[in-house]
């Protein structure tokens, strides 16, 4: 009789009652014999096989494949929040790359003179502003419609993403600011304007489309700085104490508007 398919031997092995020498020889044989592997499989309970499979699937599905998600997971963020963030256009490596290049240019310009510093201060708050503009909305999020029809409040999704974008882009700007020629008050003068413009953008998008709100704010901001320089006797006029207080007020007012109008994000406006 062929060594294959000796059912009694297989069964004693599977039950764990075959002596070690024979067990070893069966094991060596199993590595090379598909038929016997199939035969031995019958001695393992289906529930064990299914149970292990479920555990394997779960382990595979937990593991995110994207870089952003893996990083956020390592930072201790709950997996569902990390996944919501991973779908944010302005939390991608390509976006960070673009921001880094823009900041590098602004920093190099700033080292060339005081006009350069002003340029840096104009550009810096626009970075979180732009990041938030493309974080969520009908044009930039390909799953916008599906997301609207889902029970999770769009406002909440917007806030989660906006916060993440604000933190990351301000961190990048902060790093760039360290490279400025003078580490005096100007190196931090962009902070409040950044927050005010970002929150203002969110508040305005409860009335307009995010793109329109962004364009309006970029124009208003640039104009304010230029006019400040032209008609004031001190340099960096738009970044002095009184305007900074105004930025703080804009930020607070924006929060109030957002809190009141959060339902405006719940349905489509326009088509």
């Amino acid at each position, binding site marked *: 009789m062929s060594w294959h398919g000796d059912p009694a031997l297989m069964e004693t092995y599977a039950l764990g009652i075959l002596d070690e020498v024979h067990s070893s020889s069966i094991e060596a044989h199993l590595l090379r014999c598909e038929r016997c592997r199939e035969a031995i499989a019958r001695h393992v309970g289906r529930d064990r096989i299914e149970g292990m499979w479920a555990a394997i*699937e*779960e382990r*595979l*599905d*937990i593991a*995110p*494949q*994207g870089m952003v998600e893996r990083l956020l997971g390592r930072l201790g963020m*709950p*997996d*569902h929040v990390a*996944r*919501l963030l*991973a*779908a944010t256009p302005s939390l*991608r490596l390509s976006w960070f790359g673009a921001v880094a290049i823009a900041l590098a240019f602004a920093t190099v310009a700033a080292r060339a003179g005081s006009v350069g510093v002003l340029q840096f201060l104009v550009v810096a708050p626009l970075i979180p502003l732009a990041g938030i503009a493309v974080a969520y909305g009908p044009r930039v*999020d*390909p*799953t*916008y*419609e*599906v*997301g*609207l*029809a*889902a*029970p*999770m409040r769009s406002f909440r*999704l917007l806030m989660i993403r906006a916060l993440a974008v604000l933190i990351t882009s301000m961190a990048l700007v902060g790093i760039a600011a360290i490279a400025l020629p003078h580490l005096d008050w100007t190196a931090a003068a962009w902070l409040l304007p950044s927050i005010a413009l970002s929150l203002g953008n969110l508040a305005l998008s409860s009335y307009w489309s995010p793109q329109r709100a962004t364009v309006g704010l970029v124009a208003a901001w640039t104009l304010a700085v230029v006019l400040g320089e032209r008609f004031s006797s001190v340099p960096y006029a738009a970044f002095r104490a009184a305007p900074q207080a105004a930025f703080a007020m804009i930020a607070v007012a924006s929060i109030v508007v957002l809190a009141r109008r959060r*339902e405006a994000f*719940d*349905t*489509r406006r*326009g*088509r």
Partner: protein
Amino acid sequence: MTGLDDGNGGKQRVRLQGIEKRFLRTRALDGVSLDAGTGILGLLGPNGAGKTTLLRILATILAPDAGEVRLLGRNPSRSRDRLEIRRRLGYMPQEPGFHRNFTAFEFVDYVAILKEMTHRPRRHQEVRRALELSGLESVSGKKIRALSGGMRRRVALAQSLLGDPDLLILDEPTAGLDPEQRLRFRDMVSRLGEDRTIVVSTHQTEDVAALCQQVVVMNAGRVLLTGAPRDVAEVARGHVWLADGRDPRARLAWRTAEGRHRNIGDAPPGAELAEPTIEDGYLLLVGERAFSEAA
């Protein structure tokens, strides 16, 4: 998930009354009314008929300018009701977008998170169920950008099936599918329609004939006919005739496989009348516009 009770006596899950919607100068919906219970309702109409606008209203993501909407017995213009409806709703948009860096699994999982499933093992189980229902087990680990168009539509469908919704809104789900995929899709949707309400838009009369218990024919923002698919065909009874050539009195005519001409319009006396199909009725209802698109 909630069961089959729709809190509205069990029958009418969708009720629209006099819905109006304008965008700037165009009137997208002009007094649309419809009712739907358990089963599949087909929205049939040419492009630009207002189907997508209507489906967006049914999916609670667009508010009408005027008219009454009741979905699953609730009023979507109220915030709390809207949330309740969304918890029992599945929506597949006409041109579903994807985060292309996600795998199929990750994408559906993303939508599951938006559907408030935060308990991970349970959510993953539900995601796998939806993927399996859509026949996607074998590609669940693939990046979406590597999938074919037909597969992507299935991913979009899988997403809408999460949480076993009582109301399923599908916008042109069969567009861009090849004939075999189309058949598979019909089979899947007709099974789903056994115990829930599905509203599906299409400009393919075969889809309606094969799938729907009820059909609404729309054109230019208005409802032209509401009834069973049979009723659409009945519109053309006495208006379809066979002749050896193109009849000058026919509004539309084409040469059939047998070599004779099928004429639609006001049949001349003594004409050899043919049994009307849904397509005939649809063409007669919406006119040449639909014909030029279907051709």
